[in-house]
């Protein structure tokens, strides 16, 4: 079991009750927590902030299209092993010829197979009691990865390749495992079955205000209100790619470099919209729907 007290977020991270309960449940039951939700809803932030706030060791495995369980757990470095064994031969030959210069194996010894085992984040997390293990964006992985992972996670034990060393963790010391997904592909049912599932819904405007406040405690209330109003208006347009929390924060960061009156004016004019809207089609749609009223003098009156 991981550290099992309830965590309700920190001064930098707003963790709603449902998420904190799901996270707590996962840790108590020793199951991975699978978080899905729109991009920018703070999925990855949860374990990062949790680890930081509680001062716990964190191991991250960012998943990509070439991810394999080998990288995740541990891998035997054959290349280094062969190189070092060849170096030993070379050094022996040099010795014979009375040469002093020797090639170094960097402290590794070919007698010690474990010197060549490259531990991945999983092995490291399992050898550190009560740590946090983040598997980020699992939906980017090749199709077989989640199932392979399932096998690795369901046993609290890893056998290191070649060396045969065993890394084992008791249920008490299990790391808290958090898996995030952007839902770009469906995960296997069996995989989901072994996880506690939580879907982060997009925050309501009031919650968004608190989130912004956590990030920019000094931001002016008026500015934040205007920006959030505009932001939710944009999200209602049904864009191909709706702006996310992260983008709102970036936009505000840019906006806050101006004076208050100017900033509100700029927000109304959708200045720096590139921070929020990322495709050409969407920009056009926004222009059609929102900017008419703002940009062209008397634009709204034409209808």
């Amino acid at each position, binding site marked *: 079991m991981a550290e099992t007290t309830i965590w309700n977020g920190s001064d930098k991270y707003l963790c709603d009750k449902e998420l904190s309960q799901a996270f707590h*449940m996962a840790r*108590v039951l020793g199951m991975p927590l699978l978080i899905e939700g729109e991009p920018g809803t703070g999925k990855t932030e949860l374990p990062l902030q949790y680890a930081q706030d509680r001062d716990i060791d964190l191991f991250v495995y960012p998943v990509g299209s070439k991810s394999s369980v080998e990288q995740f757990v541990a891998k035997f470095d054959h290349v280094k092993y*062969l190189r070092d064994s060849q170096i030993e031969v070379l050094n022996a030959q040099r010795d014979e010829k009375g040469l002093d210069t020797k090639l170094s194996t960097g402290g590794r010894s070919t007698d010690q197979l474990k010197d060549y085992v490259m531990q991945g984040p999983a092995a490291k997390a399992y050898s550190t009691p009560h740590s946090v293990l983040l598997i980020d964006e699992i939906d980017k992985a090749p199709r077989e990865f989640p199932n392979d992972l399932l096998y690795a996670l369901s046993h609290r034990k890893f056998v290191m390749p070649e060396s045969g060393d065993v890394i084992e963790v008791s249920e008490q010391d299990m790391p808290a495992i958090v898996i995030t997904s952007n839902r770009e592909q469906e995960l296997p049912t069996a995989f989901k079955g072994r996880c506690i*599932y939580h*879907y982060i*819904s997009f925050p309501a405007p009031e919650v968004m205000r608190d989130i912004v406040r956590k990030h920019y405690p000094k931001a002016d209330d008026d500015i934040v209100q205007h920006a959030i109003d505009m932001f939710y208006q944009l999200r209602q347009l049904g864009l191909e790619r709706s702006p996310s929390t992260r983008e709102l924060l970036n936009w505000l960061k840019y906006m806050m470099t101006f004076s208050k009156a100017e900033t509100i004016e700029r927000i109304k004019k959708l200045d720096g919209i590139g921070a929020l809207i990322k495709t050409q089609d969407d920009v056009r749609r926004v222009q059609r729907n929102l900017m008419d009223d703002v940009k062209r003098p008397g634009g709204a009156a034409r209808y």
Partner: protein
Amino acid sequence: MFESFPDVCRSYGVKADVRSLLLLQKAIDRNLINTVGDLYSFFKGSLVKDPTDIGPYTQAFYDYFVGVDVGAGERLNDAIERADTFKDWLEDFLQGDDERRKLDMDDLINQFLDEIHTTTYDIKRVLDGEDILKEDDPDRPDDDGAGKKGDDANKDRLLDKAADYRFVDLEELRKRMEKVMEQQTRDHEGGSHWIGTGGVSPYGNGGAALGGIRVGGSGGGRMAREVMGDPQYYPVDIDANINDDNIDATLATLKGVIEETNERYLDIPLTVKEGVAQGGLFLPVEMDKTHDKLQVILIIDNGGYSMDYYIKAVQALFKKMKTRYQSDLETYYFHNTIYKYVYEDERRTRKVPIERILSKDPNYRVFIIGDAAMAPYELHEGSIIAWGRISEKFKKTVWLNPVSEKHWHITWTTTMLRKIFKMFTMTPRGIEQAILGMNKKKS
């Protein structure tokens, strides 16, 4: 405990089985479940596997645990208003309290939900209660009390029932309660045998749960209110032809056509070459296996107006796929059937001999989109041969048909073409099956 809950869930379309009950046992042992709200959160975490499960799940939960039956598309508030559980609770809640009578329905429902979700659920005690029930003899005659209030007292509060007795088999419970009620002749308070207030009933409001948390409390009720009626939390119709709503669901299934490998291999020629250059020091050279590129050919029937709408949807779908997954996509058009040519452009002016398609890499995946319905004479031998050659060459070929499957057997040409191609409906489900079928075939 809650043995029939998985069944209820399944009837709402949420996958649930006995494993969730085993997990519940574990959660109880570890003191996770203290309120009804905790139960809601627990089952939500363990049964829900997709945001679109949340709606049906919430319906199932309210039906089973609270006795509120939410109809399709109905708001939770409305369902609660007509539920007996709520009416009984309301009667109790309002009794002799004028302040409370001023509250409007919305506030009352909020109050009700908050109470439901924060109802302390001391499972350990309930389990003990189960023992009590076992030892209890339902046929015990009532010790004829002084007053014979009789029938009125038999109206047990449904809310108690909801929160209290669900741990035993429902049917058995109902029988038992009937028996007890037959015997009961007066009001009871406390005790463990009679139906009434107090006693082992774990229903109660206020006070922190024993040794645990109650974060799921009011939050859960609020969540449930948001969920009801929000289409985001209900499954899209994956049996409908692809449209704007379910296109993303389809896209997720299309990911299955992408060939991915993460293997590395030992490049022997390069290892030897390098080894010789280094004077006999052979260091293995490992290379990434090159990723198979996703290669797709679309052959679309864009004759007839009936196809227009679907063509747009299909093109949007594959265009999205192309931008998202970097693929090699070629699109051709035909009218009703093919003979020697297909067309490069939608207006069917630029002919392309089918030999050109046939000369391509056999690893291409071919999607033919059309209703396969035409006059029988159009699908003559020449055409059948042409289709046959495509099917022969590209092992991963499927036909997607926007016409509902039940009409396929009516048209003779559809039947004929089904002998050549695997045909699927043009729905997210159909496409998913098509892709699963494609992947199985080892060509």
